[in-house]
């Protein structure tokens, strides 16, 4: 097993953002974490990547307790992530941004600056950003920034990749391309991909093998994608109770 969360609880004052949450992720899995706004998805990500430490519960990564490990150490263990609102290192070029991932990710200490730039070039080509390689990252369009963040995270050679709304705002055609790309990467490099999705069911259905639905900080269900898309509880969380038949 790659990651195991045991009864994680994270509070902000009186607000319980994540409540008694358990989850197991195997290597090479693709999982979609879905849930409406404020259901605790981002907090869950922050707990996994080490931005927040949980008040209760434990997080185990590859058999190692990482509950209180600082974020930079988790990155070198192989946890990579992207942000909902991209956070590029604006003044640096796209190439340098991606090289940071290679330099400080799981290969940290094993690659030189020149080698990391080579890794960056390969990864940039993979996501199709080579025309923008030498541009300042701040000058990219929002979608390009998302692609750059994915490249940056992939250059870290993660074992677990957490993607925060990576496909929001993308053209449906781009989403299909992204889904294909993620599937390919996942298989080639055996990365477990956890993708957080608010409402792009197209991406969920196309990509995820498993869907975890969050509601008010707790896990509502954890089942295969097919089951989840038919689950009345999931439909209710998103759309409310279905109308009475007689009204139809």
């Amino acid at each position, binding site marked *: 097993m790659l990651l195991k969360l045991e009864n994680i609880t994270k509070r902000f004052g009186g607000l319980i953002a994540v409540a008694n949450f358990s989850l197991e992720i195997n290597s090479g899995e693709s999982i979609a974490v879905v849930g409406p706004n404020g259901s605790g998805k981002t907090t869950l990500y922050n707990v996994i990547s080490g931005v927040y430490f949980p008040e209760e519960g434990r997080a185990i990564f590859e058999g190692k307790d990482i509950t209180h490990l600082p974020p*930079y150490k988790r990155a070198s263990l192989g946890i990579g992530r992207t942000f909902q609102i991209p956070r590029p290192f604006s003044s640096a070029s796209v190439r340098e941004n991606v090289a*940071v*991932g290679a330099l*400080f990710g799981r290969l940290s200490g094993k690659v030189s*600056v*020149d080698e990391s730039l080579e890794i960056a070039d390969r990864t940039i080509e993979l996501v199709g950003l080579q025309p923008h390689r030498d541009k300042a990252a701040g000058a990219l369009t929002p979608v390009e920034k998302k692609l750059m963040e994915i490249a*940056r995270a992939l250059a870290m050679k993660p074992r677990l990749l957490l993607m925060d709304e990576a496909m929001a705002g993308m053209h449906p055609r781009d989403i299909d391309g992204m889904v294909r790309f993620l599937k390919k990467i996942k298989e080639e490099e055996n990365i477990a991909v956890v993708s957080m999705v608010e409402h792009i069911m197209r991406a969920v259905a196309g990509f995820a093998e498993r869907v975890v639905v969050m509601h008010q900080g707790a896990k509502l269900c954890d089942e295969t994608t097919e089951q989840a898309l038919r689950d009345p509880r999931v439909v209710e969380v998103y759309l409310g109770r279905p109308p009475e038949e007689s009204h139809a």
Partner: protein
Amino acid sequence: MRAKIVKYYPLIPVYAGYFILFMIGKNLPGMWQLVAMLAFYCAIGQAFNIFLGMTGYVDFGYVAFMGLGTYGMALSIAYFYQVEWLGIGVIVIGLILAIIMASLLSMAVGAVALRLRGAYFAIATIGVNEGFRYLIEGAKIWGGSEGIIFSGQLSQAFGVEKASELSTFWADISVFLIAGIAAFITIYYMRGKIGYALTALREDEDAAKVMGINVTRYKIIAFITSASLAGLVGATAWALKLTYVFPPEAFEIHYSVEFIIVVLLGGAGTLLGPIVGGLIYGLSKYWLAVIVPGFQLLIFAPIIIVIIVAFPEGVIGMLKQRIKGTVLEKFII
């Protein structure tokens, strides 16, 4: 191998600039003092840039590192001037003391203040220089408020002639050398892993952490490097040149502000920026004092505001944008 050398091409304009500056001072009569002052601003700007420019953290207490460096040299001369076999070693000990004292202070300040972000860090550092001044004056250490005057000891140790040569010529030469070393360290950091870490944390510290960067470690490295170089500048440009040190001058916050302006004018985080900034700042300060004595600050302030508004990224920061894609890109960073 060639690729490695190409990385250091930007040092060419830097060293060429210092060489021209040196030649002007050496060959044009009456220019040496002006050149020495310019070299001082360039050197301290480059030292400060390694922290201020590369991390984006503003340190108002920066002058304290220079002040301690000044004391390092002063103490060495004041205590060891009678040890004959030391010879020029007294100066070497002074330089080493300067580095040790400045870096120790930077570790202490860094351990506490570098946990704070942005404006909070700046505020926390304002107290450092003042605190040190009152510590020295109040506790009466190192001569207390009377400071240390060691021109006599310097003459006794080296003889009058050599002592005066030390403070009028070699002190200034050392400043040039320190500036050169600071430039080399800057580009060495920029081209290495440290540079990538510092750029990342300057742009977005939280994202940098999640990307695997131990931000505290790299901030401290930059801080200690920058502080040690400031200590060296203090030991030479202040201690060796003036042959005295007074607490109110050595810890005057006004200098920190000057150095911040030097870095910002030229372009924070660029290699050539602090030199351009040092030249602009030093020259305008000098000429304004000649043309409108007494009113120089009144005229100087708006000039600085105009420059900062026109080139928010500094002169070199702006130039870098302009020369993108040309051959010059390899040389000017």
